[in-house]
C-alpha cells in the first residue's frame, strides 16, 4: 500500500467555493420555505385572535338570530357538510372509476389524449364559470331548482378532474413490473387491479379525496347561484332543499349585514378553516401511516 498523499484531505479553493455556494442555496431554499408558511401563520393568528372569542357551543350549534347579528351558525355548518357529502358521493366514484379506466385500460391513442387534455382544462376552469354552468344545467335545464342537489352536482363537476388526476397519479405510482408479474401469471386486468394495483394506491387515492373535501368545503361561487341561500329558517331535510353554507355565510356576515360585530365573520372563518385543517390533518396522518407501511 502506498502512503496517502498528505495534502489529500486539505480543502482546495474549489472545495471551499463549492461549499459556500451550497450554503447560499440552502439559505435561499430555507428562506423561501419560511416565506411560504408566513401567510398561513398570519391568517391563522389573525383568525384566532379576532374570531376565537366568538367560538362557543352556542355559536356552533344554534341558528342565527337578529338578522345574523347574534346566535350561531349551525344551519351553515350543517349545510356545508351536506353539500360536501353529496358532492363527494357523486364525484369520487365517477372520478376514481374513470381514472382506473384511463390509467389501466385505455391505450395511448389520440382519443385518450384528448380526454386527458379535457380533464386538465376542466380542472383549470374558474369556479364562477362552473357556477353559471351549474345554474344553467342543473337548476334550470334539469329543473332541480336551487337545491343541495344542484349545488353538489356543480361542486362535483368542479372537483371531478382533480379526483381523476390524483387517482391516476396514485395508480401510476405502482410500478409497472408488478402488473406485468401479475399478467404473466394469467391474471386478467381486473384481477391485477383488484389484487395488486388498488391495494397499493388506495391510501394515495384517499389522500387526494380528503384534500378535495377541504377545497369543496371552501368554495363559494359555485353554490351561490345553485343551492346556497343567505338565510333560511329551516334545516335541510333532503337534497332538494336549499341550505345555508359556511363559505357563503362568511361572505354574507362580512359584507352584507350592517352593524354586525366584527367577531362573527372571523368566527365563521375560523370554523371553516378549522374544518378544512381537520380534514387536512386526517390526510397528513394518513400519509404518515402510509409511509410507515411503504411496501417497496
Amino acid at each position: 500500500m502506498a502512503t496517502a498523499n498528505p495534502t489529500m484531505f486539505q480543502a482546495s479553493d474549489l472545495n471551499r467555493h463549492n461549499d459556500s455556494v451550497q450554503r447560499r442555496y440552502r439559505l435561499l431554499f430555507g428562506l423561501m420555505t419560511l416565506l411560504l408558511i408566513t401567510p398561513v401563520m398570519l391568517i391563522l393568528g389573525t383568525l384566532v385572535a379576532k374570531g376565537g372569542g366568538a367560538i362557543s357551543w352556542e355559536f356552533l350549534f344554534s341558528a342565527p338570530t337578529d338578522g345574523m347579528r347574534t346566535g350561531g351558525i349551525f344551519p351553515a355548518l350543517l349545510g356545508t357538510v351536506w353539500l360536501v357529502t353529496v358532492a363527494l358521493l357523486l364525484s369520487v366514484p365517477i372520478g376514481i372509476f374513470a381514472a382506473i379506466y384511463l390509467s389501466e385500460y385505455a391505450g395511448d391513442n389520440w382519443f385518450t389524449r384528448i380526454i386527458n387534455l379535457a380533464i386538465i382544462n376542466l380542472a383549470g376552469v374558474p369556479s364562477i364559470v362552473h357556477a353559471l354552468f351549474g345554474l344553467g344545467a342543473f337548476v334550470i335545464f334539469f329543473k332541480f331548482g336551487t337545491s343541495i342537489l344542484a349545488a353538489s352536482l356543480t361542486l362535483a363537476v368542479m372537483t371531478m378532474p382533480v379526483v381523476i388526476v390524483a387517482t391516476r397519479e396514485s395508480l401510476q405510482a405502482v410500478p409497472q413490473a408488478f402488473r406485468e408479474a401479475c399478467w404473466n401469471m394469467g391474471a386478467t386486468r381486473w384481477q391485477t387491479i383488484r389484487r395488486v394495483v388498488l391495494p397499493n394506491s388506495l391510501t394515495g387515492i384517499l389522500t387526494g379525496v380528503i384534500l378535495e373535501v377541504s377545497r369543496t368545503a371552501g368554495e363559494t361561487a359555485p353554490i351561490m347561484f345553485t343551492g346556497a341561500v343567505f338565510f333560511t329558517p329551516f334545516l335541510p331535510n333532503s337534497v332538494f332543499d336549499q341550505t345555508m353554507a359556511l363559505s357563503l355565510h362568511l361572505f354574507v356576515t362580512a359584507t352584507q349585514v350592517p352593524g354586525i360585530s366584527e367577531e362573527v365573520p372571523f368566527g365563521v372563518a375560523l370554523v371553516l378553516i378549522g374544518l378544512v385543517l381537520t380534514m387536512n390533518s386526517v390526510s397528513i396522518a394518513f400519509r404518515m401511516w402510509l409511509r410507515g407501511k411503504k411496501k417497496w
Partner: protein
Amino acid sequence: MVELATPAAATTDASQQTVAAVPNKLEVRNLTIRYGSEVALRDVSLSIREHEIFGIIGPANAGKTSFLKAINRMDVFTSGMRVDGEIHFAGRDTRRLNNVYALRSRIGVVFPLPVGLPMTVYDNVALSPRLRGINEKAELDVIVQRCLTRAALWDEVKDRLNALGSLLSGGQQQRLTIARALSQEPDLLMLDEFSIAVDPVTTMRIEDVLKELRKEVTIILVTNLVQQARRLADRTAFFLGGECVEIGVTEDLFTGEVKDQRTRDYVEGRFG
C-alpha cells in the same frame, strides 16, 4: 422421459436418441417480432422438447426477451409490438388462442430483476392459486410450503411468511419469484437472466433448484452468462441482433462444433 431425468452424463449420441422420442413442448415457426418498423427478431424457427432446459444466449438487443414475451402472448400489453409466425404450445397455435389467460397460467416467468409483489411472502405464493379459485387455507398452506421449499427459500422465510415479500433481500426475492412461478404449476418455466441481481452463492442455489425442476417442467433459460448455459442447458440457441444464429447441443457449442464462426467467437468471449 425417465432417462432424461438423469443428469446429462449420457453421451451426445445417446441423449439425442432419447430426446428424439420426446414430444416437443413448444414449436416456433418463422417467428418475426417487430416494434413499429424495427425488427427485433427475424424468422426464428425452433422447437423445445419436453423436460429439457433450453438455453438462449446472446448479447443485449438480440431479441431474447422479445422471444419470451411472444411465447407468453405478452405482446398485447406492449404497444407497437407485432408478432408474426406460429408458436405451438402443447399442440395449440398460441397466436390463435382466445383464452390467453389459460396459456399464461401454464407458463411461469422469472424476470431479470426480482419482482416481489408488495404483499406478504405467503400471499405472493398464494396469489396464483387464488387466481385459479383455490381459497381454502389448508390447501393454500400446502401449496405455499411446497413451492417455497422447491425454490430453496422455505428455511429462510418459514418464520416470517407474513413479512412483506418486497422487503426480502434481492436473492431471496428472486427465489420468491421462482416459488411464485412454481405455484402456477407451470408446464413451462421461462427465466430471463435471473441471476443479474443475485449474488453468486444464491445463483448456484437457484441453478441447483433448476436442475431438480427439469424432472417436472420444461425450462427456457435466457442468460447472458455463457457458462451458466453450459452448466444447465441441454441445448442452447445463440441469438444475435434479432437472428437465431445457431441451435445445438450445448456441449457442442462449447467444444467448437459450430456451424457459424460467430457462435464460437461469442462463446469464447471474443465479442460481447
